[in-house]
């Protein structure tokens, strides 16, 4: 590798979206940005991905909603959110103050709800891209999770694609046999980019009470525990499609982020780490810069996808 000095470029592109660095926040772990503004300068982030939105507000699940597991946590928030309208009215003005792309994560129970949310969000000033969470059950098709059934997935993405001109990121579920196949379905249905990955289904049992700890019984596993699985899924996805991939799952440090970038992710998102360390995103940005300097690489894009496999 040629050692280069001078300014280092961290900027990356996700479809038409330009980020000053590849470090995003993972949906549901960063609220609507407000809570973190007292810990970090939001302007330094690559992008802010907000908590999942639905066309109508959701109450979410009863508690306990979270429980810690070894090197991870399960959550079953139940997609509590204020709804698209309140988001646009009450939260977007705050986010517009910053020079950071805002990615609106959204979901629905039906294709129609997905489409409505996408349409409303696309009209709003200050939403720069959409991230579609397809790890939700389809109310109209026996509650099959959209993201685990190629047909449902194709259907809902195709419809949403028609409803928006914004860059459309589809967030894949890891709870599938072949993520590469699902990635191709999303690509063909019109996704501009993919987020890999959402949480893995899991359960913790309270042995004294003989009950699941979470009120919702099951939850989604996140945090460092799942990182090796996420790196694998990102690598599998990158080999399956030609659209950009955003990697996430257990990223705590710059070193972790670099694993995903080297495996092919164009950007990464920090989730559970924000809970543990509210300045994690900034430490990761700084750590990536330091790594580039140490390695004598001037452009992060020379790192992205640089994985050489062992024969």
């Amino acid at each position: 590798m040629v050692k280069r000095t001078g300014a280092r470029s961290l900027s990356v592109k996700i479809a038409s979206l330009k980020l000053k660095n590849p470090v995003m926040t993972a949906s549901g772990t960063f609220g609507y940005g407000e809570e973190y503004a007292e810990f970090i300068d939001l302007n330094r982030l690559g992008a802010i991905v907000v908590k999942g939105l639905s066309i109508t507000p959701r109450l979410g699940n009863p508690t306990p909603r979270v429980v810690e597991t070894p090197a991870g946590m399960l959550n079953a928030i139940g997609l509590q959110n204020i709804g698209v309208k309140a988001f646009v009215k009450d939260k977007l003005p705050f986010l517009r103050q910053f020079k950071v792309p805002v990615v609106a994560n959204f979901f629905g129970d039906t294709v129609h709800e997905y489409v409505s949310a996408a349409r409303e969000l696309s009209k709003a000033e200050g939403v720069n891209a959409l991230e579609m969470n397809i790890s939700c059950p389809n109310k109209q098709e026996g509650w099959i999770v959209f993201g685990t059934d190629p047909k449902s997935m194709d259907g809902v993405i195709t419809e949403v694609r028609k409803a928006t001109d914004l860059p459309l990121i589809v967030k894949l579920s890891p709870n599938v046999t072949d993520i590469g196949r699902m990635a191709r379905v999303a690509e063909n249905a019109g996704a501009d980019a993919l987020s890999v990955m959402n949480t893995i289904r899991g359960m913790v049992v309270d042995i004294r009470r003989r009950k699941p700890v979470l009120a919702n019984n099951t939850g989604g596993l996140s945090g460092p525990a799942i990182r090796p699985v996420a790196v694998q899924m990102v690598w599998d996805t990158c080999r399956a499609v030609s659209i950009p991939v955003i990697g996430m799952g257990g990223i705590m440090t710059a070193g972790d982020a670099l694993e995903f970038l080297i495996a092919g992710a164009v950007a990464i998102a920090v989730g559970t780490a924000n809970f543990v360390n509210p300045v994690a995103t900034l430490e990761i940005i700084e750590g990536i810069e330091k790594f580039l300097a140490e390695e004598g690489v001037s452009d992060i894009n020379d790192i992205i996808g640089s994985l050489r496999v062992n024969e």
Partner: protein
Amino acid sequence: MSKFFTCEIVGNSGQNANFKLLTLQPASQIIAPKPGQFYMIQTGTACDPLLKRPFSIYNFEQNHLSFLYRIRGKGTLSLSQLREGDVLQVIGPLGNSYPEPDGDFIAVAGGIGIASLLPLIRKYRQRAYLFYGAMNTGDLVMLEETRELAKEIFITTDDGSDGQKGWITHAVKDFLGELKIANQPSPRRKGALSIYACGPVPMLKALSEITRAAGLPCYASMEEHMACGIGACLGCVVKIADKRASLQRGAEAAGQFIYKRVCKEGPIFNIEDIVW
């Protein structure tokens, strides 16, 4: 002054078999906490335990933070194994605080709930009637300190090993009853005698009935599993009566609730608003 900082442990010693007092020296100047606020404290050194754990501020003196905690599970066990000189990340002060009492007040502590109430009792010296309930005598801590600070202390234990045998809420009820007979307090005097409580949900629930019947204001510090402590994860919600809904939509909307975050809108709520 950032709410996220590192501290060196300057003390982490047992108060008795079940409780430890953690004293932290922040590396920098920090924001002074108010009674009832809490901190998220790192309890391990690697990724297990992963999340910080919430602890009420127990004391803040000479820029030192101290916390009284009970070893319950993985996180508190791990914390209990750390030593002087170890460095921890801390977030805080977080959440709201107990509203200022207007005269004398009643503090109702169930078990480790004492930790949250002591700063209030300490701040308003000789103004608190402390009701302190525990499983047994081994679950009572900090009594010496408390005796000086409180106006009067009432103790109950489940097994009668200290104080009266029975529930602390019964003691509160009896006390309020006697007070009524003795003083015939006017609604204003009554209003002055506000109640502050921290303890397990069954205690708070029983208390809510007593205080409602007595027409006294009561503020309860709530506990929920927390992931972030700063309002981002929505993990720690409690059901709060949706007054707007009841007002707007009348009776059929009564019993409707919204979720509020213990870490942000709480941990202290008006006990009347809580939907149990």
